[in-house]
């Protein structure tokens, strides 16, 4: 098991390094000179040159890359071209909000997705199932900002139950979390429902039935465990999507967010900040996938056995 974790961690580090390198190359290949952007409109050639030396973008590309990696190894993400602040400080100011929103939304999505999925499968074809199916179709077709806007109008303006903006406390996060959680629960709902329905025809379920187990025990203990494998994979993808795709909802609810920071930095060619944001996102993404991999072993004994077999 430990060996499995180590293997995956090393592989993950390679992925992160690849992502950092790729983004470094892409940023340098994109048009636009960071120095003239920082110098601003109407700056003279002399000023731009001065800024270029200050930023260090006059150095050869390979050297910039090497120095960046050396800095990374020392935990130094560099300084923003635009504000000259340490990149880490900028990220620290924006990331917690994104992480909280993403994790809370994922938790809501999991609870709703699995709950509704199981009910839908158990009561297949009945009215509960039909209500969930229609709701899912509705939620999957609606863009998050639109659902958020409707939520604002109903719960904040009309009923005045919830604040629209703000920080700290649970109240300002209820609407964005509910809106994202609902939308992201749909793929989970569908996967769990279909997984259970398919599994109910599997031979092992027949065996369990033949053993005389109660239907409820079969679904909740045996079938659900099998379905969880694919659900966890999907969850990994969804959390990644949540971490990187919250920008619009963050802007709608006037929240801080890593996505906003990244978009702004890309636009200004503020390369250290973009690299920092991408680095963090890729670490989070890879970390989630690592957790997913490890959870396979926990959910499915076969993976454990296979890993142990290779170890021998």
């Amino acid at each position, binding site marked *: 098991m430990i060996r499995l974790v180590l293997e995956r961690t090393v592989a993950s580090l390679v992925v992160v390094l690849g992502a950092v390198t790729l983004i470094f190359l892409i940023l340098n290949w994109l048009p*636009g000179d960071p120095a003239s952007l920082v110098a601003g409109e109407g700056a003279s050639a002399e000023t731009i040159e001065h800024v270029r030396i200050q930023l260090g973008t006059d150095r050869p590309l390979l050297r910039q890359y090497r120095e960046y990696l050396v800095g990374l190894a020392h935990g130094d993400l560099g300084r923003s071209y635009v504000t000259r602040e340490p990149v880490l400080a900028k990220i620290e100011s924006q990331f917690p909000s994104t992480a909280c929103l993403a994790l809370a939304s994922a938790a809501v999505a999991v609870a709703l997705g699995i709950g509704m999925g199981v009910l839908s499968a158990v009561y297949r074809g009945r009215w509960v199932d039909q209500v969930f199916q229609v709701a899912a179709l509705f939620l999957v077709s609606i863009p998050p900002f639109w659902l958020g806007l409707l939520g604002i109008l109903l719960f904040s303006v009309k009923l005045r139950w919830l*604040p629209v903006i703000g920080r700290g406390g649970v109240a300002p996060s209820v609407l964005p979390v509910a809106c994202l959680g609902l939308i992201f629960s749909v793929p989970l709902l569908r996967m769990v429902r279909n997984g259970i329905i398919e599994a109910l025809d599997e031979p092992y379920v027949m065996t369990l039935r033949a053993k005389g187990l109660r239907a409820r025990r079969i679904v909740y203990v045996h079938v659900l465990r099998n379905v969880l494998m694919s659900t966890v994979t999907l969850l990994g993808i969804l959390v990644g999507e949540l971490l990187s795709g919250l920008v619009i909802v963050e802007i709608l609810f006037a929240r801080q967010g890593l996505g906003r920071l990244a978009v702004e930095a890309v636009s200004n060619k503020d390369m250290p900040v973009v690299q920092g944001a991408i680095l963090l996102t890729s670490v989070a993404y890879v970390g989630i996938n690592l957790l997913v991999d490890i959870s396979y072993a926990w959910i499915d004994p076969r993976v454990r056995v296979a890993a142990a077999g290779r170890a021998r």
Partner: protein
Amino acid sequence: MIRLRALLTLFAVLAVGACGKGSSGGGGAGGGAASVQPIGQPVSGGELVFGFDGAAVTDFALDPHKSAFAPHHRVLRSIFDSLVVALPAHRYGPWLAKSWQISPDGRSYTFQLRDDVKFHDGTKFDAEAVKFNFDRVKDPKNAFFSTSDIGPYVSTTVVDAYTARVEFSEPYAPFLANLAKSSLGIVSPAAARTYGDQFPHHPVGTGPFRFKSLDPATEIALERNPDYKWPPAGAAHEGPAWLERLTFKNVPEEATRVAVLLNGQAGAVDLIPPQNLVELRSSADYQLVEGELLNHNYSLYLNVQREPWKDPRMREAFRKSLDLDAAVKTVYLGTAARAWSPLSPSILGYDESLEGSWKPDRAGAAAALDELGWKTGPDGVRVKDGKPLTVVFVDTQGNREKRLDLMTVLRHQLHDNGFDLHTDSEASGAYLAKSAAGDFDLLAGSLFAPDPDVLRRINSPSFRSVGGISKVDDPALNALLDAGYREMDPLARTKIYETAQRLIVDKTYAIPVYVLIYSVAAKRDVHGVAIDVNGFPVFYDTWIQS
């Protein structure tokens, strides 16, 4: 609830009042161009939460000399004071400067300063501080946006502790107008030295509110400056501001801004979307303050250095194919006025005679295009020598002020006459590269500025930025714009700029589109929110009815 017409009447009334006073340093009447009439006696205390459109930007750059971003100047105005204040009808009143004299040759401005002003950090404001500020703006190492506000600045001489003389290498008429903008607000030299390049996150000025804290992307918290006793001419009261706290919340989404006003999370919000403006105007629970932003109006600039737009007849055919009245009405629902000149109407030298001087003429444009060899192809797009009549519009701003909605309407109008408009949305880096290389057919933009010299900032090859929207290089226009900033007599200046505007419109260098009216909606119990002559919000006289 003051509409544009009422606003203009107000200008006229104030102008008459101000003219009676005479001398250049005299106090004028009424600093605000528009303000909500206070009801009852103002009370001190309380917090105003102001939801403003700060775009998706996460970095609040609160250095008046550095920032080129209008939303940040809406915050800066409360932290930083200026030497002079702009009054209606192109007049200026005392603020941190008690009085001033301009030398007959227009190259030297001498200011007598107030001697009782302190920065928020406790240091004294004096002639040395004024010198520090202008030298800071001019220093090429700082690369500040405000550099273009001080033009041919040479140096500041400290005549005595409270007298400063600012010297220019040539006559410089726009100086007072630029001086009244927050972009030449006075920063604390001590703080600027201490914080260095981190000053934008530790702004220290002399304003009625001092900086308390900020949350990147979402909030800037200010608190009352208890020592404040140097309001500008025209303020409604003296002494410290009424509000104890003033909190700016960045709410970039317009629907959310309206929602936080309606659910009470904000006491006032700005830049109300047209559909809500109409509704809020008729509501008894809210009040609306509106003021024209002194601005180079949002205008379309065809690339005059590229075929086929080198030919003025092509540019004219393009303009004649547009029905701007219809487009502006459709998109802004009557809340923004149609523009006729690149200058907004309240800027010195605005040429009224341009109004109605050019009209849509689809048939005329079609005939001209036919004559020039652009024949309609099978898909409705005109073709010449196998080349379709494509117009690539390069943009980086997105739908701010509903500009992309507007372009969508224009695209349909143009298509009806055989033009094929494409919008190419780019990040600002790529946008600047493309505009500098001339790799576009059409650019569009605006620039907030209180003086007609903005035409030089946009159009003059020797003064504009390489990535600017205009690629015009017309010796006649350049000569006019150079003469304009050197001419000290307002009447002669007006004549010069009238000729320049007519030239820009006649040759279709710019196609002005709309006049931006800056709007603030406040709850009924929030009084005295004002919009200054430049079109920026002022909270010094604001108070909350308990």
